[in-house]
């Protein structure tokens, strides 16, 4: 395993299209629920322990080689909002394109064939990590970090927040990121014996509800 591969995969400039998504931050800013750094920290913390944990566990399980079709169905069941399911599949397809060019692997080809419109992004992420020779921890770290880095960067643009402050928010979440990854990987390891029901299903009602409102806006800065 090359640890440097993790830096390539987790790099915000990795061409996987994540920058077009705010992780629900745009809707929360418009609703007045994020007005500054403190709200952003709270938003990111809530997202990390819900959508972030689920994404990290899915990515970890995919990196362990669990059946990606079953994992994709588990992701569907954990994403009631069709707007978010669509966003996750679009992101999955974009990541797939970048991944196949970067770390070609038969498993990636097979998943791309199975889901021509894209599989859920965390599943693709886990399989990409596997193709890059990374393990479930690395895959889970990538997914968990993305769950908070996206909203933080988006909020900088939406509220003209000081980028130093936004980065400090992410840095202060590091210990909780570690905990989430640990929980995610422990669950991912149970999938082999217990099936996908062992994966966490933590949800954030407002992320799901607001995503539907956001998808109906005529003009928006971010895709989700």
């Amino acid at each position, binding site marked *: 395993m090359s640890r440097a591969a993790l830096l390539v995969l987790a790099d915000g400039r990795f061409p996987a299209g994540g920058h077009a998504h705010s992780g629900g931050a745009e809707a929360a800013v418009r609703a007045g629920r994020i007005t500054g750094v403190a709200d952003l920290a709270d938003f990111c913390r809530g997202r990390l322990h819900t959508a972030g944990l689920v994404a990290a566990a899915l990515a970890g399980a995919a990196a362990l080689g669990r059946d990606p079709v079953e994992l994709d*169905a588990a992701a*569907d069941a954990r994403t009631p909002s069709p707007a978010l399911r669509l966003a996750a599949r679009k992101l999955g397809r974009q990541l797939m394109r970048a991944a196949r060019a970067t770390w070609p692997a038969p498993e990636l080809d097979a998943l791309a064939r199975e889901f021509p419109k894209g599989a859920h992004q965390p599943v693709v992420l886990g399989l990409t990590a596997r193709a890059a020779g990374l393990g479930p921890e690395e895959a889970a770290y990538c997914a968990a970090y993305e769950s908070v880095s996206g909203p933080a960067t988006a909020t900088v643009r939406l509220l003209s927040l000081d980028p130093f402050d936004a980065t400090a928010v992410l840095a202060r979440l590091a210990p909780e990121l570690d905990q989430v990854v640990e929980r995610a990987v422990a669950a991912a390891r149970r999938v082999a014996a217990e099936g996908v029901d062992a994966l966490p299903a933590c949800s954030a009602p407002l992320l*799901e509800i607001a995503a539907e409102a956001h998808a109906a806006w005529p003009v928006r800065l971010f895709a989700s």
Partner: protein
Amino acid sequence: MTTAASPQAAAVAPATSPTATLPPEAASAARAATTTAVRAAPAADAPQPTTSAGVRATARIVARHDGRGGTALPVLAGEGPLAPRRTRGSGAEARVLLVGAMSGPLGGDRLTVDARVEAGARLRIGSAAATIALPGQVPGPARYDVRLTVADGGELHWLPEQLISAHGSDLYVTTRADLAPTARLVLREEQVLGRAAEQPGRLTSRLAVRIGGRTVLDQELACGPGAPGGWDGPAVLAGHRAMGQLVLVRPEFARAPVAARVLGEGAALVPLAGPAALVSAVAPDALRLRRLLDEALTELDRACAGPPGDLR
């Protein structure tokens, strides 16, 4: 006249087993009274279902098509705080009301409701009052597991009153509905964080719906003191104190799924990845939450009563 409280009566009572000759309603009430008394003063020889780890109780309900266009209830059994009662049904549908025979769930309790609707039967289950999770004398969380099974052509309406998480309580509640491919379901769950102006306890609630062996919904919400951070923040509840889910499963949704729609500030109707629809809602209080979910259900019923293409 000898009163029930006289020593003689108390001494004779166990030998003659008074509950054995009483109608089921009264017998259950007598048992509830017994367990309540035991709970107030735990004794070493405490009778079932109370144990040192709290109450363990299961309610079982089986609904069966009676062959004459109605629904029979061959099994209707309660225990401890769970007392299911048959009430007047309507048409082919049998109705059951869950009556809380004692307070709870309390810390350490383990309650289970197991309701099974057999092929072609129709059952509606409600509850007589809200369920209040309270702290108990036994440390540790309480568990409340609801298992709903509906066979082909069967229909279940699971519409209990709210679950209220009182200050200091700790409850893990799971609801799992397992449906055959042509089964129908209306399921409503409402959680309220704290009684009026009260801080909530810890509440974790997981809801999973499976149709034909495929999980179409799996959602867990954790909130209150000790829950992972951010639960009350802008991504999760943002200060709302009541949240609810309304799940509808209808085979015809496979052909004509509902269209996703926002229902005001804190609620959305969405099609799930399967023949099911979900209304997810948050509200400042239980009253406004119920209004949201009631409106959504009425509208869905109206849409579904029309031709299949009229589901919006």
